[in-house]
């Protein structure tokens, strides 16, 4: 956990292309699972997990967070967590969160 920029390593063009391939496959899976009736009970957590994975892949590789200083990760992930908390709080307050029932 060092604060020094990890500029030594850089993703290669090959890494970028592989990440794009994974993103394409996960997007296809996302669209596919909504049509599979047997997956209906777990479709929401499944979709959220796949979406989060895509989000993380773009942030880590395309936005270089994996290779950058932790300061930048903190600057982005901190507000991201707060904003997610804000969204959960708003949905809970308005009773939109199915977990808490209506």
């Amino acid at each position, binding site marked *: 956990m060092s604060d020094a920029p990890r500029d030594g390593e850089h993703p290669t063009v090959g890494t970028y292309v592989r990440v794009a391939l994974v993103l394409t496959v996960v997007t296809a899976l996302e*669209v596919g699972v909504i049509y599979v009736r047997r997956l209906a009970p777990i479709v929401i957590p499944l979709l959220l997990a796949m979406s989060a994975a895509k989000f993380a892949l*773009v942030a880590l590789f395309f936005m270089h967070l994996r290779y950058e200083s932790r300061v930048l990760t903190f600057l982005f992930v901190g507000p991201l967590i707060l904003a997610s908390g804000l969204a959960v709080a708003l949905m809970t307050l308005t009773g939109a969160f199915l977990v808490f029932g209506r």
Partner: protein
Amino acid sequence: MTGRLLGERLGRVQFWVIFAGFNLAFFPQHYLGAMGMPRRIYTYPTDAGWTAGNFASTAGAFGIGVGVLLFIVNAWQSLRRGAPAPADPWDGRTLEWRTSSPPPAHDFDTIPPVYGRDSFWREKHGPRRGAPPTASHAPLHVPAPSHWPVMIALGMGIAAVGALTHVSIVVIGVLWTIWGIVRLALEHHRTHAHADQTGVLGLDHRKMAMWVFLGSECFFFGTLVATYLAYKGRSVVGPAPHEILNIPVTTVSTFDLLMSSLLMVLALAAVQRGDRRQARLWLFGTAVFGLVFLGFQAYEFTEFVHQGFTMQQNLFGSTFFVLTGLHGTHVAIGVLWLLSLWVLALRGRLGVADAVKVEIAGLYWHFVDVVWIAIFTLVYLIP
């Protein structure tokens, strides 16, 4: 500011006129309020007994106006034949009085010595306590004055006037504003003093600023998504999301945006290794993929409107169009940004030293992409 003193006698008259006018304007309002007059009304009944107080207030307001007029006259006379102002006419305490008169546009060319609070007073009269003076003779780089911010403000003003009158004036104002922003951004593009922006953390200031901005954007889109989800399923009238959203078409546009992110990193890699041809190609490709995404969105919105689904239709319409429309606006801004970089690349003005500029544009572009990843799942896919 002008190197001239204001007229003392006229200044005193102006002070007293404004002082009297201000008190005459506002003091009666205390009594009028106590007598029951509501605030912020433009007229009142004649038989309520408020006439005399309001008349006094109006006279006072005119007094303030006369005072301001006296100031304008004084300033005009000062500009034409005012006595020259010395650098420190009133034995000032703070550093702004330490500069010459009239001051240069950015006050100091070198960092002045600082003796603590009321530094200039201590420098003149002592005691010179606090930190030892650390006068730096290294040139202090401050951007030169630019008229482009004024042009940008003017463009925004025109757009605001258009918002009250006609949409074509809004378009003129927005184009004017964008033109001003581009010119301001390119004004110091090649200034040597701007080349190294590394801060104390060893990070580029511009990159760090972009990450801070993206952090704030998380809140922006987080609240919009939360509002959409909070109102989901609460529309009194139709249509509902599953009745109108076209998942196959949006899947294609999502794929397009994901691939634009790939082109963006390829563009950055090309700029970093100095491959100008590929840099031009991938930058243009990213912008085109962005335009294709906007085309899909325009098609989707048009279809919805033809089917009677608008922003005013129901809660779903309001939250859906605000969320996806603002995302589309972000994409449009990104496309303009990418095209301006592409024009720079075409002119051969985007070298290896400018890689950080492409990287920052890329961060913005990828963020727009990740926001769409979230919107696609939360709005389109989740049943």
